[in-house]
């Protein structure tokens, strides 16, 4: 189940603040897209718009062959578009396995079957030994994996990962990069919001850079990294001239 995601003219304001302005975004089936930009650029807002948690003021989002604007989040999830949250949101009273089961139930309505499927996913993300542990007892890195596992269990065609590496140490980052590669290799398209530039460059086929809600650059990792507007957005004016041509 792969599908193409296309957003056209996506806009959203909060009061007077334009969080996202006229964004065009395409994710081809099987692609790994990096979404970067300084804090406040609107990246998470884009995720919220795509996944149905926010309604756009203008613009359209098409997933596969249908428009998904206005659909509630659970419906979009069932269509195959899953997301994780920047600050993890585990179900506190449940174990790791039970958490993932909630996701699995989206495709396997029978509770026992869902549990089996959840077990598979838990093993796959490397939380097998911690399956019976309460979600509140996990380390940050484990929570990030749990968040990913729960989204994976819904068997998505496209996965939106929101700063899944934030707060992890280098070893943990490497481990999760391997995991993301593995997930991607199984045919799932991925859009990655990340501040960890090395990871984004290493993983992404293509990168889109946002600043103040607008797209300022798009292209291969190398092209975007050297793009003057991107440098300006992150580092400010003076560094643009210092950048290699």
């Amino acid at each position, binding site marked *: 189940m792969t599908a193409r995601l296309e957003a056209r003219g996506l806009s959203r304001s909060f009061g007077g603040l334009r969080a996202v302005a006229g964004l065009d975004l395409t994710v081809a089936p099987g692609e790994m897209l990096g979404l970067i930009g300084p804090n406040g650029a609107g990246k998470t807002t884009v995720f919220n718009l795509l996944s*149905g*948690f*926010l309604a756009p003021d203008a613009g359209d989002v098409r997933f596969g062959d249908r428009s998904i604007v206005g659909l509630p*989040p659970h419906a979009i999830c069932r269509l195959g578009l899953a997301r994780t949250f920047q600050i993890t949101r585990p179900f506190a009273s449940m174990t790791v396995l039970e958490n993932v089961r909630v996701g699995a139930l989206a495709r396997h309505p029978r509770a026992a079957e869902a549990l089996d499927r959840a077990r598979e996913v838990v093993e796959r993300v490397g939380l097998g030994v911690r399956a019976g542990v309460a979600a509140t007892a996990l380390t940050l890195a484990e929570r990030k994996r749990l968040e990913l596992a729960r989204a994976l269990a819904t068997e998505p065609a496209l996965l939106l990962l929101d700063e899944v590496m934030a707060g992890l140490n280098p070893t943990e980052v490497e481990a999760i990069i391997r995991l993301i590669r593995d997930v991607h290799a199984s045919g799932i398209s991925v859009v990655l919001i990340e501040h960890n530039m090395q990871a984004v460059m290493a993983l992404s086929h293509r990168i889109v850079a946002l600043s103040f809600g607008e797209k300022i650059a798009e292209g291969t990792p190398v092209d975007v990294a050297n793009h003057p507007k991107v440098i300006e957005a992150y580092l400010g004016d003076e560094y643009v001239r210092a950048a290699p041509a």
Partner: protein
Amino acid sequence: MDLTLVLQGLVSGLLFGGVYSLMAVGLTLIFGVMRVVNFAHGDMMVWGMYLAYLLASRAGLDPYLGFVLCAAALFVLGLLVQWSLVDRIIAAPHEMQILLMLGVALVLENLALVAFGPEPTRVRSSLGAATLWLGPVFFDVARLVTFAVAVALTVALSVFLYRTDAGRMIRAVADNTYGALVIGADARRVYAVAFGVGAACVGAAGALVSPILPFQPSTGLSLSVTSFNIVIIGGMGSLPGAFIGGLLVSVAESLGAVFLKPSLKELMSFSLLVLILLARPAGLFGRRTL
């Protein structure tokens, strides 16, 4: 329809609104500062009324003087409730806060029931049944004084909040708790004062209204509902909203009484609450929150 009657309803409603405003201001202050909904608000007000009754009947103190003592007593009660109970669950899930305040409401209402019995009471004030005529409309002097004192208290509260350091501290905590902590605010103390002041408001309001309105322990619930109505209309945490809302709701109720059967008054009040809950501006707690 008799225009005089309508006009009369308008005037009475407006005058009574001073009390509603004071009551609502207390509730919105507590919510604005602590994000706690005081389910026991109406029951605290009823205690203000009963205290005024005790002062009047035992000590001969007119409620228009005694309200100060009632406010002080309720202030202490508010402090106690906040320090011993609310403070402990300030970080707990909302359900716990709701249940806690529900428990406090139960205790207050039924203590009043046990202490004073279920029959309605009224307080005699020296202003008695004096009335003033202005054209076709008459004013209860008592209501006029109630209105004046209530508005004066609300103004005093605003001055406190906007012109004094303590008041500014309270507003800072309400606005941005972490920021306020950074600049050295003692959040717990601010919470206690806010709760105390909120309770003092209804203590005063109760005393002021005791000569005008017959009351019994069960009045607490309808007063709470009215408070919620006003505060939700005016915007939770907004002082001017509570003030205007109080006047509006009072006038609406008064006009309603002109046109409808009195036993249906409660029905209107609760139906209004339902409508307001459904119609309140989206974006506060909209359908989708993140």
